[in-house]
């Protein structure tokens, strides 16, 4: 009996140890973690392309991708515990207002990626139609909330004009089951998911109402001051990866299959939906570096909105929040 017990314990330990992969080191390249938010997803195609096509390696970088909560990661980058992440513009300004010296060094999205999505029968055609409506959004935080408020304010609406419901990341389900009349989501995701499932939808893009800073490559002031070449290498590799993925979407999608869990196990119909999500995402990528004046205007718009919402209390030095010397 004892022998059998020992054998069983030995078997379990062996199986569990087999779960731990050996750590492969590449001594020639500098290891660096690029923190992406959310979970592995086709929308992150440029970063998978950068790894697989060797753009990061060409820049001397051995990039590992990590996923997690955006606000937590901004705190880590701001505190200097991590060096690079992808974050939305409002996170950069809100973190700087809290004394976390994060800086955007390359733009990923040209448009703010958020929009309000409603089924056709709700007849929400313009931001003014949001009056009196039940709106579902993940919560009163993050890009969805900021984007919605920007859209509502563009129609001179305030929070008393509509009802905001925190529904977590269940936008598609909540809309389809009629729990809310409109939802706030990513324009490249939720509308595509709904259309592919046979629902007719209307989309109000935040980017059509106001020009805000979307997702960008973010680092901290210390890394910029101590290792500007390192930052330049990363920023340029990211820009190159974005451009390549945008120009070669089919190849980018194939590369995604190596990095996005479960993608290969989806049915052909579901796989096609994911391809459409990636293509919609490409439409809002920044493939050419933006002029300084343009960038400054976007950051200023974002600051104005955050001040209005009371999410920051004082005017910040916008020039310190972004740099356009690394991505070109």
């Amino acid at each position, binding site marked *: 009996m004892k022998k059998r017990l020992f054998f069983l314990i030995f078997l379990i330990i062996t199986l569990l140890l087999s779960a731990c992969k050996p750590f492969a080191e590449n001594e020639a390249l500098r290891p660096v973690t690029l923190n992406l938010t959310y979970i592995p997803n086709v929308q992150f195609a440029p970063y998978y392309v950068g790894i697989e096509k060797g753009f990061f390696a060409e820049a001397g970088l051995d990039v590992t991708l990590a996923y997690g*909560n955006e606000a937590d990661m901004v705190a880590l980058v701001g505190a200097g515990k991590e060096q690079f992440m992808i974050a939305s513009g409002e996170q950069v300004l809100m973190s700087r207002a809290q004394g976390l010296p994060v800086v955007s060094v390359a733009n990923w999205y040209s448009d703010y990626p958020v929009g309000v999505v409603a089924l056709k029968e709700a007849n929400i055609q313009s931001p003014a139609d949001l009056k009196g409506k039940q709106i579902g959004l993940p919560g009163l935080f993050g890009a969805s909330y900021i984007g919605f408020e920007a859209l509502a304010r563009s129609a001179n609406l305030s929070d008393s004009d509509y009802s905001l419901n925190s529904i977590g990341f269940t936008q598609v389900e909540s809309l389809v089951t009629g729990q809310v009349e409109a939802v706030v989501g990513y324009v490249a995701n939720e509308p595509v998911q709904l259309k592919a499932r046979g629902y007719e939808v209307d989309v109000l893009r935040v980017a059509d109402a106001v020009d805000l800073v979307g997702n960008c490559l973010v680092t901290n002031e210390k890394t910029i001051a101590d290792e500007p070449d390192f930052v330049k290498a990363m920023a340029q590799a990211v820009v190159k990866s974005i451009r390549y993925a945008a120009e070669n979407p089919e190849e980018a999608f194939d590369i995604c299959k190596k990095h996005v869990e479960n993608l290969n196990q989806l049915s052909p119909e579901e796989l096609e939906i994911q391809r459409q999500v990636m293509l919609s995402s490409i439409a809002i990528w920044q493939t050419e570096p933006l002029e300084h004046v343009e960038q400054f205007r976007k950051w200023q718009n974002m600051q104005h909105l955050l001040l209005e919402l009371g999410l920051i209390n004082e005017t910040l030095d916008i020039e310190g929040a972004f740099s356009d010397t690394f991505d070109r």
Partner: protein
Amino acid sequence: MTEPLKNEHAQRLSPRISPLLRILYPLGSVILLLALWQVLYSLLKLPAFILPSPKMVWDKFLLILLNGTWWHHLSWTLLEILLGLLIGGLAATLIGYGLSKLSFLERLMAPFLVGSSSLPMVAVAPLLIIWFGAGLGSKVLICSLTVFFPVLVNVLVGLRNTPQELHELMRSLNASPWQKLTMLELPAALPVLLGGLRVGTTLSVIGAIVGELVSSDRGLGFLINVGRGQYDTALVFVAVLSLILMASLLYYVVLLLERRALVWQTWRKDHL
């Protein structure tokens, strides 16, 4: 007169059922649940991303089982849980023993022990991941913390309930502290301690999942996130059902250990 009465009472509390029925009852409830699920699916006609059919979930399970994805993620969560149980359980036992010997320290710690039972791990987990990184370590820590407090409280209760006359007997026999620990305190506390471990096991599963849902790139919690992100609800179901199965199996393993370790108690009840 009392003996037949005692037996009758025991029989009324746990009526003896045949081993076959013991398997058939839970099997029947599972089949009933599956049938109810299928009926709901057929009646409500909801899209698969809101409610998939049992067959869709089964097909997804087979798919990820055969290509190794299922074990890849399950083994990681199991590793987190087992390490969490080991570290949390061991730390709680050692600290619990220390506290039971130093009553002033126990009194000092009492507010924390009471408060800790309501520690909202969902709120604390993101902070632990920021402080200790997103890797295996932070998940094991979350599991250990969820296991630590129930086991600690049970260790304290178990040690405190050791009959005073037995302590006095050990003292009169000039027993060394080690002899007291191994021959009296540990056996006396073992039933309550293992009870705590049983509760800790299921809590540890919750701890691991909370950690993985916050931030991870492997594990059943990660698989749930992936399924949610891709509207692959069948995958979410597979991950959730796997968790339930794993938690139940772990619970029964501890129960089995408990029965084996406490075989002397049954013997004592039967013979004294």
